[in-house]
């Protein structure tokens, strides 16, 4: 049973990662068409990717958007998670479900809803519209992991700190925050990646000058078949991987020390 299970796991991972490997291999193709087998090995499409203004603009838009959305969503999610984990009030479960809803509602529905709301509110500034939408995307991911960390936090630690003379704010700063930090960091990584990779919601909210990288890649694919897209995708995959690994190590290390 055990070898069979291991085989199944291996098969699943291959299923998930094989397409990524294909993309990386194609990006290194010296030929002019994104296809297999490889004609020759080359890095020319990587240079081409960086010469394509649309990609660079998309990369910049997606990056600032993901960073800003994560930094705004994280403290909001922290506050919401603490309220839901600690306090006992009527409609607590409903509030939690409501705050987690952006994960459950299809992105395309959220996108249309935000587009309609934005036009109703005369909100024509694409960066602002996008930022609001991406905070919405980032928020549930932050909240879920922070909430999980909070439920593992023994309330007697808070009692202990208060009897030792800490007021609520100092309890938060010295006890709660350090102990939920791994969950906070993990949530921020998830949120960043979700925001960075989002297509369905952003689709409705961009304009000509503010286009996210995934949308740029999509529109590029409509008219081009060269491996530039593969090169850009490979770079993004690599960056995401390094970010996740790096921050996980940071958070994991802190946790081991604590």
């Amino acid at each position, binding site marked *: 049973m055990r070898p069979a299970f291991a085989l199944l796991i291996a098969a699943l991972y291959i299923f998930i990662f094989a397409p990524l490997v294909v993309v990386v291999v194609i990006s290194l193709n010296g030929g002019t068409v994104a296809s297999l087998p490889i004609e020759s090995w080359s890095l020319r499409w990587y240079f081409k990717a960086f010469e394509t203004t649309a990609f660079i603009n998309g990369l910049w838009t997606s990056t600032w958007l993901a960073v800003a959305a994560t930094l705004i969503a994280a403290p909001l999610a922290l506050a919401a998670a603490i309220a839901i984990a600690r306090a006992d009030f009527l409609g607590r479960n409903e509030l939690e479900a409501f705050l987690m809803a952006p994960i459950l509602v299809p992105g395309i529905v959220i996108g249309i809803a935000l587009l309609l709301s934005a036009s109703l509110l005369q909100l024509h500034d694409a960066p602002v519209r996008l930022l609001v939408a991406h905070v919405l995307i980032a928020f549930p991911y932050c909240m879920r992991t922070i909430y999980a960390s909070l439920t593992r936090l*023994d309330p*007697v*630690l808070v*009692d*202990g*700190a*208060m*009897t*030792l*003379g*800490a*007021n609520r704010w*100092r309890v938060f700063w*010295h*006890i709660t925050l*350090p*102990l939920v930090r791994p969950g906070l960091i993990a949530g921020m990584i998830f949120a960043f990646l979700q925001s960075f990779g989002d297509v369905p919601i952003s689709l409705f909210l961009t304009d000509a000058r503010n286009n996210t990288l995934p949308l740029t890649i999509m529109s590029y694919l409509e008219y081009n078949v060269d491996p530039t897209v593969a090169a850009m995708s490979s770079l993004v995959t690599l960056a995401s991987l390094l970010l996740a690994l790096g921050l996980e190590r940071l958070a994991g290390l802190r946790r081991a*020390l*604590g």
Partner: protein
Amino acid sequence: MTGMSYLTIDQATKHYGATRALDEVCLDIEVGEFVTLLGPSGCGKSTTLRAIAGLLDIDRGSIAIDGRDFTKVPIHRRDIGVVFQNNALFPHMTVAQNVAFGLRMRNVPLADQAERTAGALALVHLPDFGARYPHQLSGGQQQRVAIARALVINPRVLLLDEPFAALDRKLREEMQMELRDLTRRVGITSVFVTHDQEEALTLSDRIVVMNAGHIEQVGTPDAIYSRPETRFVADFMGARNILETTIVCIDATNATLAWHGTTLRAPLLAHHWLIVDRVVAAALRPESIRIVQLPMEGENATSGQVISKIDQGAFVTLKVATGPHPDETLIVRQTKVDQARNGPCAIGDTIGLSWEAADVVILRDAPRSTARTQVTIPLTSQSIRAARTP
């Protein structure tokens, strides 16, 4: 009560929905006293402790320390040291940082913090453990750090909520001795919560036995053990023979009781209100009963047949049927030494039993508050208020 009350709890009442977690609890504790709140789970002992610490608000009543009303003072300004059952050490801080936490919250200068932290760790015999993290310590060491952390702030009162419950027996006994020694040396007023009778008897200057949110009895360990006032206290302290007796007559110092043809004499105690012909419960500890030669006659003696026998190491516990009625059984506990002296007895043997009058304790079934109302019952010629026994 010899001195002034230092910690005063007055009519503290706390409801959780319809249940009364605390029911008009009144308690006076003197400076430097070590008081244990003892009782089964849900009796209100931990609730009382949390009320003193400020971790919960009482609905009615007041809590004062050294003449100052603390009922409405927030937790972090009470200066009360608390040691929790699972130690509540901060896992992300070193031992030294844990101990210094209370000083840091009081903005004590760094140099003083280091000095006082080192002093507190030395006090609990862990001077070299400052740099470690709590998870690197054993359970006993963690509790010592928790005690150091609570004491370093020079608290008004030290509260301990079943701090040794998770430790094994041997370590628990060591920690009890150490704690008792430590609180004496520091001279701190301490309130300790436990459900363990032995622990309470070992540690305390006074024991407060609680049941269902109210206080059953307050007294020295000896008084609680030897002279329980209520059925609950007698039962909880292991007086397994609680006999439903009828009062036959009362003289100046003793009452004569009848129980299924056996006559018992018991000393009168200050709190007794006895009326001839009334039924009262009398407690008799299993270890107070001696096995004697037959035939038995007279007061405080009976005979019966051994119906069960349990060997418990240092003791042998016998169940003896003294008559045909199912209630007519006595639990007798013999030490192995006594057993060797008297010769072994087997199930089915008929043996004689006897005990001292001083070991029979007349109980009142009702809690203290109800007992007070009995004062209003008109005294008849048959009723005698017991004089305080010398």
